C-alpha cells in the first residue's frame, strides 16, 4: 500500500495521543484510588454505588440513633433504679409502722416518709441532658408532676394530690429501617397508672354501719381472683361489693351487698363467719352466680363492721405514700383504731407491692429495649462493613492491576515515541 507523508505524521500523532490518553486515565485512577472516574466508566456500578452509599449512610444514621437511644434509656434506667430504692425504703418504713409504736414514733416515720415523697417527686421530675423532662411524654418542656393545691386532699391522705401534667406520648427513635423504639416511658405509666389492690380489685375497711370506723379487730387480706372472666362479668353487672357483719343465731354472720344497688343482698341467707376463713364472692339469690374471687377476713369483727371490695382503679405512687402518711399520722387510741391502722397500712402495702411490680415491669421493658439495641447495633455494624465492602468492590481501584497496566502503557508510549522520531527522520531529501 502506498503511504503518503502526512499519513506518517497523522498516524504517529494519533498513536501517541491514544497512548497518552490511556496513561492519563490510569494516572487519574491511581491518584484518586477510584476505578470509576465518571459514570461513563461503569454506568451500572455508578448507579449501584449511589444506592449503596445511601444505604450505608442511613445505616450509620441508625447506629447514631441507637447510640442516642441507648444514652436516653441509660438515664432512664438509672432514674428508675433510684425510684425503686426509694419505694423499697418507704415499704420498709411502712412495715415498721405496723409494729407496736407510740404515736410519737409513728410521727417520725411519717416525717421520714414525707421526705421520701419529696425525693420521689423530684426524681419524677428529672430531666435529661438537654433539659427535657424524662417523664412528661410529648410535653418535654412541661414539669410533669406537681402537688395540685387546687384539689382538696382525698382521705386518708392529708396532702393535696399530685397531678400529672404530661401525657402518654412516646418519644420514638428510628433505630432500624422498620423499628421505631421509644426512648422514654411516660410518667403516667411509671408513677400514675398503677392498678391498686391485687390488680383486679382492692379491699378496704368501709366503716361501721352505725357510723365511724370498724369497731372490731378483723383484718382483711388483699383477696385473690380465681376466674377473671367471671369477675369481669360480676363487676360489669354489680359494680363492686360490700361485706357486712351481723350477729346471727349461732354467732357472727356476713352478708354481701352490691355497689350498684347498695342494699340488695347477694346471698340468699347470711353466711356464718369463721375467722381466717376464705369468703367466696358469689351470688346465691336467683340467678346464682360465682364471681370467681375470694377474700380472707381474720380476727373478730364487731357487728356492723364493713369491708368493701372494689374493682381496681389506677392509683399513683404519690397517692399510695400520701395515704400511708395519712394513716400513720392518725393517732391510735384503742385496739380497734390499731386494727384500722393495720388494715389501712396493709391495703397500701399491697398497693406498694403493685408499685414495685410495675417498676419492675417498666425496668424490664427498658432493659429489653437496651438489649434489643445491642443486637441492632451489632447487626448494623456488620451491615456497615458489608456496605463498605460492596462499595469498595464497586468503586475502588485494583492497584496491582492498575500499576501493571500503567507500566505496560508507559512502555508502549516510549516505543511509539522512539519509532515515530526515527520514522519521521527518514527522508530521501537528506541523501540528495
Amino acid at each position, binding site marked *: 500500500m502506498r503511504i*503518503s507523508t502526512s499519513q506518517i505524521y497523522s498516524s504517529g500523532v494519533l498513536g501517541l495521543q491514544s497512548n497518552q490518553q490511556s496513561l492519563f486515565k490510569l494516572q487519574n485512577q491511581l491518584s484518586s484510588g477510584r476505578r470509576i472516574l465518571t459514570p461513563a466508566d461503569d454506568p451500572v456500578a455508578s448507579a449501584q454505588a449511589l444506592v449503596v452509599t445511601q444505604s450505608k449512610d442511613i445505616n450509620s444514621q441508625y447506629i447514631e440513633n441507637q447510640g442516642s437511644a441507648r444514652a436516653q434509656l441509660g438515664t432512664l434506667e438509672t432514674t428508675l433504679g433510684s425510684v425503686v430504692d426509694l419505694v423499697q425504703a418507704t415499704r420498709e418504713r411502712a412495715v415498721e409502722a405496723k409494729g407496736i409504736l407510740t404515736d410519737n414514733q409513728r410521727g417520725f416515720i411519717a416525717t421520714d416518709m414525707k421526705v421520701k415523697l419529696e425525693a420521689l417527686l423530684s426524681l419524677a421530675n428529672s430531666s435529661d441532658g438537654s433539659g427535657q423532662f424524662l417523664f412528661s411524654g410529648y410535653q418535654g*418542656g412541661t414539669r410533669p408532676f406537681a402537688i395540685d393545691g387546687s384539689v382538696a386532699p382525698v382521705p386518708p391522705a392529708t396532702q393535696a394530690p399530685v397531678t400529672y401534667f404530661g401525657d402518654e406520648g412516646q418519644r420514638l427513635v428510628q433505630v432500624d429501617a422498620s423499628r421505631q423504639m421509644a426512648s422514654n416511658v411516660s410518667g*403516667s405509666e411509671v408513677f400514675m397508672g398503677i392498678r391498686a389492690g391485687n390488680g383486679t380489685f382492692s379491699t378496704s375497711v368501709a366503716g361501721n354501719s352505725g357510723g365511724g370506723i370498724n369497731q372490731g379487730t378483723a383484718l382483711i387480706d388483699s383477696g385473690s381472683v380465681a376466674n377473671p372472666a367471671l369477675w369481669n362479668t360480676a363487676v360489669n353487672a354489680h359494680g363492686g361489693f360490700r361485706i357486712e357483719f351481723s350477729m346471727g343465731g349461732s354467732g357472727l354472720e356476713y352478708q354481701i351487698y352490691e355497689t350498684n344497688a347498695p342494699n340488695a343482698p347477694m346471698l340468699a341467707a347470711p353466711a356464718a363467719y369463721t375467722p381466717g376463713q376464705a369468703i367466696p364472692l358469689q351470688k346465691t339469690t336467683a340467678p346464682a352466680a360465682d364471681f370467681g374471687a375470694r377474700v380472707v377476713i381474720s380476727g373478730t369483727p364487731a357487728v356492723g363492721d364493713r369491708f368493701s371490695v372494689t374493682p381496681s382503679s389506677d392509683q399513683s405512687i404519690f397517692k399510695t405514700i400520701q395515704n400511708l402518711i395519712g394513716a400513720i399520722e392518725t393517732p391510735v387510741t384503742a385496739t380497734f383504731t390499731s386494727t384500722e391502722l393495720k388494715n389501712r397500712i396493709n391495703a397500701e402495702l399491697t398497693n406498694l407491692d403493685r408499685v414495685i411490680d410495675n417498676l419492675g415491669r417498666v425496668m424490664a421493658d427498658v432493659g429489653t429495649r437496651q438489649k434489643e439495641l445491642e443486637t441492632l447495633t451489632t447487626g448494623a455494624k456488620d451491615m456497615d462493613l458489608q456496605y463498605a465492602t460492596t462499595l469498595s468492590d464497586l468503586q475502588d481501584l485494583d492497584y496491582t492491576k492498575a500499576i501493571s497496566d500503567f507500566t505496560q502503557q508507559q512502555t508502549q508510549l516510549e516505543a511509539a515515541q522512539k519509532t515515530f522520531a526515527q520514522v519521521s527522520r527518514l527522508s530521501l531529501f537528506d541523501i540528495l
Partner: protein
Amino acid sequence: MSSGIIGVGITGIRAAQVGLLTTEHNITNASTPGFSRQRIIQSTTPPVATGAGFIGQGTIVTQIERLYSQSLVNQVNTAQTNVSELDAYYTEIKQIDNLLADENSGLSPALQDFFRGVQSVASNPSLLAARQSMISSAEALVSRFRSVENRLSELYDGVNTEIRSTVETVNSYAQQIAELNQRIVLAQAGNNQQPNDLLDQRDYLVAELNKLVEVKARVDSDGSYSVFYGNGQQLVVGATVSKLVVQASYSDITRMVVGVQAAGSVQELPENLMTGGALAGLLNFRSETLDKSSNDIGRLAATLTLTFNAQHALGQDLLGQALGEGSFAANFLTVSQPLVVANTLNASAATVSATFASPTAATGGGFYTNLSNSDYRLTYNGANYTLTRLSDNQSWSNATIAGLSAAVSPSEGFTLASAGVMAAGDSFTLMPTRFAARNIAVNSAVAADPRLIAAATPVRTTTGSTNSGSGMVTAGTVATGYALGALPVTITYNSGTNQLTGFPGGPVAYNPAGTTVTFNGISLQITGTPANNDTFVVARNAAGVADNRNALALGKLQTQATVAGGTANYQDAYARLVSDVGNKTREIQVTGAAQSALLKQSQDARESLSGVNLDEEAANLLRYQQAYQASAKMLDIGSKLFDVILSIRS
C-alpha cells in the same frame, strides 16, 4: 533533420519542465488539506511518415491529472460526518457526566446531609440547634439543586450559541462552494482540462461542510456541484445558495432552532432532518440528553418539595400550631409551578397555566407524585384540546380544558387551567419540571424561624385515668385534609353494645384485636379489653415539644418510593439519571471510537491514492531532472551535428 533533433529535444525539455513543476506543486502542497497529488500524462507527438516508416517527433504532456477517487472521498465524508456528530455530542454530554460524577458537586451527598438534618430534629425535636442544622442542610441541598440546574442551563446556552455559529459556518461554506462552482464552470469552458486545484478546494469545502452537517454533493452536467442535506433539501444549486436560518423556536423562545427562509416567514426544520455533523450532534444532545437530564433533576426537586411539604403539613410546630393556625408553615420547601409557553404563532391571546397536583398518599405512609420527565404539547383544533406527552406521544383529548385537566392530572401529576378563548391551531408547550431545580428554595418563613419546622403531630391520645379495663390506644395520626375542630373527643367503650362511641361518625363495633377509629382525618387504634365506660381521649397535642412523630415520618420519606408514581426513592431516581447519562456517554464513546477507526481507514485509503509522498516526489524530481538533462544533451548533440555541416562549407 537536425531541426527535427532540436525540435524533439525541446519537446523533452518542455515535458520535463512540466513534470518538475507538477512535482514541485505536489511537494509544496504536501500538507495542504484536501489536496490531491497531481501527475503529468505524457504521450508521443504525432510521428512523421517517411519511406522508412514513422519517425517519432518527441513527447507532449497531454494532461495534468489529479489522483482522485470520488467514492473514496465520499467514504471519508460519510465517516467524517458521523465522527463529527459523535464528537459534538460527546463534548457536551461529557460535561454532564463529569458534573454528576463529582462527589462534591453531585446531588447525592447533599441529599444525604439533608436527611441527616431531618434525623437530628427527630432525635432532638425541641432543640433549636438541631432545627437550625436541618434548615442549613436544606439550604445546602436547594443550592446544590440550583447549581446543577445552573450548569445545565449553561449547557443550553452553549448549545444555542454553537448552533448559531455552526449554521453561520455552514452558510459561509455553502457560499464558497457556489462561488467555486462558477469559477470551475468558467475554467472548464475555456479548455477541456480539469481545474484540479479548484476541484480540490471545492471537495475540501464539501468535506468541511460534512463536519458540520451531513451533505451529499451531486455533479451536474456543467461540472458544478449541487449540495443537499437531510432527505434532499437544497443547500447549493449551481451558483444559488439556500441559506439556513437560526432563530428562536416558535414553540419555545428559549430554544434556538434551524429553519429556512420560506415565502415571508421562516419555516422551522424538524430536528430529525439534520443528520450527521456537529449540528446533529448538538441537536440530538439537546433533545435526547439535556432535556431529559434537566427534567429528571427538576422532577426530583419538584417531587421532593411536594412530598416533603405534604408530610410537613401534617405536623405541628414548636409553637403548637397546626395547619391553618397562626404562622404555621405548611410548606417547608417551595418550588415553581410547571412552565407553560405559548407558541408565538398563536392566533389568540389565550393563556394556559399548569399547577402541580397534590401528591398521592401511599399505603403504609408517605406520599408520591406521578410526574414524568417528559415535556408536553397542548393543541386546540377548534373542537378538542389535545395534550401530547412528547416522550412517547401518548395523548389525551377533551372538549374542555377542565375535562382535559381531570383526565391527565391523576396520571401525570399536574392540572391545567386556561384563560381567554383559544383559536383553532393554537398550541402550547408544557415543561412541568424543566425549571423546578432552578426555583427550589427553603420556605423563607421557616428559614427565618426554625421553630416552624413541624416535628410533632397535632393530636395525642390518653387512656382515661379511671379506666379499669386493659384497653390501650395508639398515639393517633392525621391524614391530609384533617380537621381539629371537634377536639377534644372522648371515646367511650360500652360493654353492653360492645361499641366505641362519642366521636363524630361513631359508634363503631369493637374488636379486641384492634379497632381503628377515624374521624375528621384523625385515626387511632384501640386494642385490648376495655371495661364498660372506659374512656380514651383524643386531644390537641398542646405543649408537645418533645413529640417527634412527624419528624420521623419526614425522615422516612428518604427511603420511601416517592418518585415516578411510587416506584423509586429520591436517591434511586438520581441514580437512574446518573446511570442513564453514564450509559449514553459510554455509548457515544464506544460508537465514536468505532467511527473514528472507520474514518481513519477511509482516510488512509484516500491518502494512499491522493496523498503526497515526499520521497516519491524526490524520486520524481530526479527523474524529471535527468529527463531534462538528457533532452538538453540532445540539443547539444543537434547543435554539434549542425556545426559539422557548417564546418564542411568552410
